[in-house]
C-alpha cells in the first residue's frame, strides 16, 4: 500500500473556510457546530469568568489584609466568597477542562471529524454565558451569601431570596450544559474513534475525559435534584430541608456532596489527562505505565462516587459511616499516587525541554502533591474534625484546584496554543508568567495551612488580631497572583494577533492533532488521518517508518 498524504484540497468544498479567513473571528460569536470553534469559545468564555472570579478573590484578600471588617460590609463579603467559589468551579474549571480542552482535542486525538452531536455541543456551550451573566448580575440585588455549598436552613431562611433563587437557577442551567457535553464525550469517545484505533491506542487525555464524563452523567443529575428540592423550600414553602417543618438538612448535604465531591474529580481528571499528554512530548520519552494511568482514571471515577460523606464528618454522621468514608477516601490516594509516580518516571532521564508547557506541568505535579497530601490528612476523621471549616481547608482545596487544575490548564494552553491559533506564544513572557504564578500562589496559600492549624475559621470577614501578620503575607501573594495573569493575557492576545507563525507540529508531538495543519481545517484533515505510531512512541525510532499502524479503510 502506498501511503499518500494529501495536503492540498482537491475541490473548493474541502476547505470551506479558506475564502472567509478575514471574517473568521465572527465565527466565534456564532452558533458554530465545529468542535474546534466550540472548544475555543469555551476556553475564552471561561477564562473571562476566571478573571471575574479572580477580581472577586482580590477584593476578598484585600478585606482580609486587616483583622477588622473595613473594606466591604460583612454581608457583601459573604456574597463575594459565595460567588467567587461558584464562578471558579462552575464557570471556569469544570467547563474549561471538559468543554474547552475536551471539545477541542477529543475529535482530533481519536481521528474524528467532529463530535458525535455537533448541534447539541453548541447548545451545551450557549447555555453557559447566560447562566454566568445571571449569576454575576445577582450582585445588583444581593447575591447568594451562603457559600458555594448553599447549606439549608441558612439558604432557605436567607435575606437574599432573589439572589439565592438566581443562584439555584444558574446551577441547574450549568448542570444541564455539563450533562449534555458529557453525553457527547461518552458517545464520541466510545463510537467515533478512527478505524483501527482501540481503546488502548487512545491518548490518555481521552481516557481521563471519558472518566470525568461518566462522573458528570452519574452525579450532576443528583445535584439538580437537590437544587429542585431546595428551590421548592425557598420559593414554595415546602420543608424538605427545614427542621422546623419536619425536614432534614443533612439529606441536602448528602445530595449536594454526592455531586460536589465527584465534581472535584471532574475538575482534576481531564487535567491529569493534559499532564499525561504534555510530559511525554516535552521530555521526549514514552509515557511510563500507559495502562496504569488509564485504569487509574477509571478507578478514581469509581472511588470518587463513594467518598462524599467525608465532607460531613462533623454533621453528626454515625461512626460506622465515618469509618467507611474515611477508608474509601484514603484509597483514592492509591490510583492518584500511581499517576504521580508514572509522571515522575516519565520525566526521569528524559531530554527535558524546560519551556512554559513543561514548567507548568512540573508545577502542577509538585503543587498537586501538596494538595493531595493535605487531602489524605483531611480524609482521616480525627484530623478533619479538628480542622473542619478552618483555613486549612481553604489551603487544601486551593492547592488541588489552583495548584492542580489551573496550573494544568495553563500547561495545556501553552502546549496547544500553537495548534489552536497557528501562532507561537512568547516564551520569555511565558516564563515570567510561570514564576510569578508559582511564587504568588505559594505565598498566598502555603501560610493558610498554618492559619488553619491555629484555628482561623474560613468564611468570616473579621478575625483575631493574632492572625494579622500571616494574613498580610497571604494578601501580598494573592495580589502577586492577580498581577501574574497580565503577562499571560497580553502574551495570548498579542501572540494570537501577530505572534510568530507556528508550524503544524512545533513540539514534534506524535498524537493525531499534530498531523493536521495549525489551526486545523474544518473537518480536521484533508483525506483520512493516518496513524503511524502509538501516541507516546518517543525515541523508539518509529517516527519515520513507512507503514501506518492500522489500515485507514
Amino acid at each position: 500500500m502506498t501511503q499518500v498524504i494529501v495536503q492540498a484540497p482537491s475541490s473548493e468544498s474541502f476547505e470551506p473556510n479558506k475564502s472567509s479567513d478575514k471574517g473568521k473571528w465572527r465565527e466565534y460569536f456564532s452558533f458554530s457546530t465545529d468542535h474546534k470553534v466550540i472548544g475555543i469559545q469555551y476556553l475564552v468564555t471561561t477564562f473571562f469568568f476566571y478573571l471575574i472570579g479572580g477580581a472577586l478573590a482580590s477584593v476578598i484578600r484585600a478585606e482580609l489584609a486587616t483583622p477588622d471588617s473595613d473594606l466591604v460590609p460583612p454581608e457583601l463579603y459573604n456574597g463575594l466568597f459565595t460567588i467567587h467559589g461558584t464562578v471558579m468551579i462552575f464557570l471556569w474549571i469544570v467547563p474549561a477542562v471538559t468543554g474547552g480542552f475536551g471539545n477541542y482535542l477529543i475529535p482530533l486525538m481519536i481521528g474524528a471529524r467532529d463530535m458525535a452531536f455537533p448541534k447539541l455541543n453548541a447548545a451545551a456551550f450557549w447555555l453557559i454565558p447566560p447562566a454566568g451573566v445571571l449569576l454575576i448580575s445577582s450582585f445588583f440585588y444581593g447575591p447568594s451569601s451562603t457559600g458555594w455549598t448553599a447549606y439549608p436552613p441558612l439558604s432557605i431562611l436567607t435575606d437574599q431570596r432573589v439572589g439565592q433563587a438566581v443562584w439555584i437557577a444558574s446551577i441547574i442551567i450549568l448542570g444541564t450544559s455539563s450533562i449534555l457535553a458529557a453525553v457527547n464525550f461518552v458517545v464520541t469517545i466510545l463510537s467515533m474513534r478512527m478505524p483501527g484505533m482501540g481503546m488502548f491506542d487512545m491518548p490518555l487525555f481521552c481516557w481521563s475525559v471519558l472518566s470525568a464524563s461518566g462522573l458528570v452523567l452519574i452525579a450532576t443529575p443528583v445535584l439538580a435534584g437537590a437544587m429542585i428540592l431546595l428551590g421548592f423550600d425557598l420559593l414554595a414553602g415546602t420543608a424538605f430541608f427545614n427542621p422546623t417543618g419536619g425536614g432534614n438538612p443533612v439529606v441536602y448535604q448528602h445530595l449536594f456532596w454526592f455531586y460536589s465531591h465527584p465534581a472535584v474529580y471532574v475538575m482534576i481528571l481531564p487535567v491529569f489527562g493534559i499532564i499525561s499528554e504534555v510530559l511525554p512530548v516535552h521530555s521526549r520519552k514514552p509515557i511510563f505505565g500507559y495502562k496504569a494511568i488509564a485504569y487509574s482514571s477509571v478507578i478514581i471515577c469509581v472511588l470518587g462516587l463513594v467518598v462524599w460523606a467525608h465532607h460531613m464528618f462533623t454533621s453528626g454522621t454515625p461512626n460506622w459511616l465515618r469509618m467507611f468514608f474515611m477508608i474509601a477516601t484514603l484509597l483514592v490516594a492509591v490510583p492518584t499516587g500511581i499517576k504521580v509516580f508514572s509522571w515522575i518516571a516519565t520525566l526521569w532521564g528524559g531530554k527535558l525541554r524546560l519551556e512554559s508547557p513543561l514548567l507548568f506541568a512540573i508545577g502542577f505535579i509538585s503543587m498537586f502533591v501538596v494538595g493531595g497530601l493535605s487531602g489524605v490528612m483531611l480524609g482521616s476523621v480525627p484530623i478533619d474534625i479538628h480542622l473542619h471549616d478552618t483555613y486549612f481547608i481553604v489551603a487544601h482545596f486551593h492547592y488541588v484546584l489552583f495548584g492542580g487544575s489551573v496550573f494544568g490548564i495553563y500547561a495545556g494552553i501553552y502546549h496547544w496554543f500553537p495548534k489552536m491559533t497557528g501562532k507561537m506564544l512568547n516564551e520569555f513572557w511565558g516564563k515570567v508568567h510561570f514564576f510569578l504564578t508559582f511564587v504568588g500562589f505559594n505565598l498566598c496559600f502555603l501560610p493558610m495551612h498554618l492559619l488553619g492549624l491555629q484555628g482561623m475559621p474560613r468564611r468570616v470577614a473579621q478575625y483575631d488580631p493574632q492572625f494579622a501578620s500571616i494574613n498580610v503575607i497571604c494578601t501580598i501573594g494573592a495580589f502577586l497572583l492577580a498581577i501574574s495573569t497580565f503577562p499571560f493575557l497580553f502574551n495570548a492576545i498579542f501572540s494570537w494577533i501577530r505572534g510568530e507563525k507556528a508550524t503544524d507540529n512545533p513540539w514534534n508531538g506524535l498524537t493525531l492533532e499534530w498531523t493536521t495543519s495549525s489551526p486545523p481545517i474544518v473537518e480536521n484533515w484533508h483525506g483520512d488521518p493516518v496513524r503511524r505510531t502509538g501516541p507516546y512512541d518517543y525515541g523508539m525510532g518509529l517516527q519515520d517508518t513507512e507503514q501506518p499502524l492500522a489500515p485507514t479503510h
Partner: protein
Amino acid sequence: MQGVITDSTPNIALAEASHAHHEHPDHRVFGLIVFLCSEGMLFLGLFAAYLTFRAVSTEWPPAGTPELEVMLPAINTIILLSSSFVIHQADHAIKKDDIKAVRWWFLLTFIMGATFLAGQVYEYQHLSFGLTSNLFASTFYVLTGFHGFHVFVGLTLITIMLIKSFQKGAFLGGKHYGIEAASIYWHFVDIIWVVLFLMLYIL
C-alpha cells in the same frame, strides 16, 4: 520518508473516497440511552432523598396524613404499563415500514398516556393534603409531579412524531430514529413510574 506527499496535485479519487467515508453514522440512539441513564440518576437522587426522609423520621407518614387511595393509581399503573407494550408494537411496525400501523399504535399510546395524566390530575384534586401540608405531602407531590412532567414530555414527543408521520416519506427506509426515540423515552417514563408507585403507595 517513502510516502508520496502531494502538495499541489490534488488526489481526487482519495478525496471522493473520504467524502463518502465521513458520512455521519447515526449515534443518536446510543446518545439518548446515555442521556436517559443520567436522567435516571435524577430520579434516583430524589428516591434516595425520599427513602432517607422516611428512614430517619420517627413516624411515617407523619401523624395526621390521610391514607392514600390505592385503587385509582393502581388502574393508572396498569394503563401506563400496558402502553409500553403498545408503543413497542409501533417499533415493530416501523421496521417493516408500515407507517399506518405506527400511527395507530402511537395514537393508542397517546390516549393511554393522556388517560394516565388525567387520572393523576383527578387524584390531585381529591387529595385532602396540599404541597406544604407535611414532609410526606411535599415529597408525594414533587415526585409524582416531576414524573407527570416527564409523561407530558413523552406525550409531546409522540404528538410530534404523529404529525411528522404524515410528511411524505418520513421514517421510511430505516430512518426512523424519531419513532425509536419516542418509544425508548416512553419505556423510561414507565420504569420510573413503577418504582415510584411501589415506593409511594405500596411500601
